[in-house]
């Protein structure tokens, strides 16, 4: 289980990093997935660009209603709810503790998760649910892609191989947004069988905005649009949430069978978990 040989560069600027990518380099951020893939002979880069020395990429800023997460912001950062203002910080803090365990979170990055695009990734599900935007830089310039269009399949994204994911941007959530994150998994070490993140806004007794992100409910992260539609205008109630769960499970999700979770079971869990998450986001 050893990586095959590669050359190594440690660029000191974004421009140098982008040049290295143009020369065929693969990015090393936290390395918590890249090294795993190399050990398992799933990744054989000829050149690795270690971006850990690029200044500025570790910045986390919130301004004008937008949160910008630089490529080197580690999972760990989000464990303190104050790191990100408002309910978004609360949601991230609830989600992050379900990602691996502390030593992995000390190295792994949120942007790395989005680059890796594991279908069970918690961050990826939240990115699509929250209308995040992914910023990509290459020698050809910079472009932004909405998260909803970015994920194409397991470990597949719209990022071109020579593009550096420089930042992820999230609209901050309004202060009266209720949030929750729940995860169903087999042991403390396993990836999620299903995970659900939700953000609900209730005004004058009816739901005015709903965002539901689903991890490991398809070959890519999903936003549960059908489920959300059933909620808009409804009063927050157990039956409404159960209905939303049903919609998420039958209309939004496209579960892939796995050992210990066939499609029927997956669909069932999605329905249950979505309803539970919504209930927690907006206590009835």
């Amino acid at each position: 289980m050893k990586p095959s040989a590669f050359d190594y560069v440690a660029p000191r600027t974004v421009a140098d990093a982008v040049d290295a990518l143009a020369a065929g380099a693969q990015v090393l951020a936290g390395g918590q997935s890249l090294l795993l893939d190399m050990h398992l002979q799933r990744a054989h880069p000829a050149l690795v660009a270690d971006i850990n020395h690029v200044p500025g990429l570790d910045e986390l800023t919130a301004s004008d209603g937008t949160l910008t997460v630089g490529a080197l912001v580690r999972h760990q950062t989000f464990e303190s709810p104050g790191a990100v203002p408002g309910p978004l910080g609360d949601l991230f803090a609830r989600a992050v503790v379900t990602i691996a365990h502390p030593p992995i979170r000390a190295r792994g990055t949120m942007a790395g998760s989005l680059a890796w695009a594991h279908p069970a990734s918690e961050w990826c599900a939240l990115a699509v649910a929250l209308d995040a935007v992914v910023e990509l830089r290459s020698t050809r310039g910079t472009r932004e892609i909405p998260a909803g269009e970015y994920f194409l399949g397991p470990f597949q994204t719209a990022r071109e191989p020579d593009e550096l994911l420089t930042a992820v941007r999230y609209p901050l959530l309004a202060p009266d947004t209720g949030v929750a994150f729940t995860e169903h998994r087999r042991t403390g070490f396993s990836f999620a069988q299903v995970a659900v993140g939700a953000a609900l806004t209730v005004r004058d007794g009816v739901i005015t905005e709903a965002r539901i992100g689903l991890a490991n409910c398809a070959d890519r992260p999903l936003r549960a649009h059908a489920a959300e539609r059933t909620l808009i205008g409804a009063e927050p109630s157990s039956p409404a949430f159960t209905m939303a769960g049903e919609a998420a499970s039958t209309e939004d999700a496209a579960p892939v069978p796995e050992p210990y979770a066939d499609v029927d079971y997956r669909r069932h869990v999605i329905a249950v978990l979505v309803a539970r998450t919504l209930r927690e986001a907006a206590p009835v």
Partner: protein
Amino acid sequence: MVDRWLRREDERLLTGAGRFVADLRVDGRLDAVFVRSEVAHGVLREVDCSAARETPGVAGAWSAADLPGLPPMPGGEPAREWPALVEDRVRYPGEALAVVLGDDRYHAEDGAARVRTRIDPLPAVVTARDAAADSVALFDGLSNVALRGEAGSPIAGEVWERAAVVVESRYRQQLLMPSPMECRTILCVPEGDRLTVWSGHQAPHRLRSELAALLDRPEESVRVVVPDTGGAFGSKSAVFPEFIVVAWLAVRLGRPVRWVEDRRESLLVATRGRGQDQHVRLAADADGRLLAYELTVEADVGAYPHLGVAFPMQTAWMATGPYTTPLVHATVRSVLTNTMITYPYRGAGRPEATSPLERTMDVLARRLDLDPAELRRRNLIPPELFPYRTPTGRTYDSGDHPAALDLALRTLGYDGWRAEQARRRADPAALPVGIGLSCYVERSGGERGSLHDYVGVEAGEDGTVVARCGAASSGQSHSTVFPALVAETLGVEPARVRLIEGDTDELPGGVGSFGSRSAQIDGAGLQHAAGLLIEEARERAARMWDLPVEETAWSEGAVHPVRGTAAMGLSELVKRTGPLRIDERYEADMAFPFGTHAAVVEVDPDLGTVRVLRLVAVDDCGRALDPAVVRGQAFGSIVQGLGQALYEGVPFGDDGVPLLANGLLDYLLPTYAEIPPIDLRETRTPTPRTPLGAKGAGESGCIGTPPAIVNAVADALRLDHPERLQMPLTPDVVWRAAA
């Protein structure tokens, strides 16, 4: 200094000074990497190592064709030989097709990646039940059934017809990976006529004799040394194909060669445990008295006949369990499948016996509307019936089973939990809880032929004492426990006694550490040898002092005349009378530890998740040499049992390849997040079969815990016939059973 560390092993292991095989530095050592089959079953068409040989850092690459004369695995059958490297047919996924030696693992893997292989796949069979049908034959023209056996006598049809209740059920004891944190290791160092083999191993002497025979050289020319070993649990007790290749190449090249198995290959090709498809019938009268029990086992033994094909007989012999059932019959078919071989894993055959019986007891209790504890109490073998000969041919040495059951119920607060269960059943919002029991009896010490070991005690001129034994520790604290026992027997300070084990140069023979035998056999043997040393010392002193032996006595590590005070310590005695060393082959009979395990679980029927709220284990292993060490073993064993019950398993794809590509992210070992509060209690019924009175310890958790947990889940869900609950009870399994 001494008091700072509770165990002698601790200082080196806590400071990074432990020495595991992978830590040993030997100049010129080569690392072996195996090219492995990605298919489960197929015809090998081509292996081309030429590109690998050209790879920088690679010292050589070989397929079976390149190594004529490479010996096959020992213990098989000529018609169904297990070659160390595949010759023409692949029979299990991961089977080694070629070996590459490099100056380190990186370069060897570079080479391995360049070995070209071509295999035409064949259909694969991965369960005993499927394989027994013989629609896919592992060996052309031969049945997949490798062995048939039985224990007890067939039960007449009328017994079943006349019984008030008969329960029938099917169970699967899933395949498990023993998963010590250190995988397998071997380092072979040829020096002149000698070959020194370093290996994290449980049976060094057996490894020596097998390797010597395979390499066709005298036993004395091979030395096996076991340094620190990172756990074993049964998985390091055999010789393996990779060992043969490494030893063979080391000798042929005259260079040190090592293989340090990594986790990915371990999950493919380490020996597995369990792997039985079972069918049971249990008959009782209207009062719940057991009348007859029949167990039919189809055991998956893996791809080749090997020393372990008869291990499932362990299950048959122990089928009677702790009950007075008058008629018991167990039959076994060991069947070849396209998987790496099944071999003993902690519990080895006894978990497979306990689980079907204990699960069926609960079904019977429900059928009779009896409390499961009461049903067991009515049938447990009472203390006055020991020694008890079972219908399946075992003679249990001793026991007080009802006492263990009662202690478990008291410790758990059984009635309190039943009340809580009733309360929750009345509250639709509450999650159901269930309570599960399991009474077990197991066998420790070994089978005939391996109920002995070599032990020695030697007194030195400097006043120290060296104890030797054929055991090998992989975490069981031998270096602490055995010297303490010898010191106690001799009446000297424990610090003066040290243990040497796991080195074949130190003792004429040895059996090793498996089947919970070390304390029972080696411990009793060391106590015996220390006693002989005292006798010898008294005889020498008697001669010196010109006294009859009866006029000498021994106390506090010294011999003295019965009348008078002039004592002579061991060091003085050795100085005056020469070397003093006792070597013994000590033999004892098997013993039968027993106990009761209880579990309380809470089930979320909507998701199928099981939360274990409480576990209680009452174990009786006779005299515990070091109670804290025994408890440590019991605790770890229970957690492995929890793993079997809820998390661990080997799922297969349709092609017969295990779906474990993500390693320990797929094969889920319990983490601390899964550990409930666990209460350990002991009862003490020393075995009358040795003066020491110790029975084996350390396997009970794997034996008693799984059925206790499964019974608790069935109880929570009020399932009348919980056949759908097959381990591991993953959420999807529980959800389906609850639906």
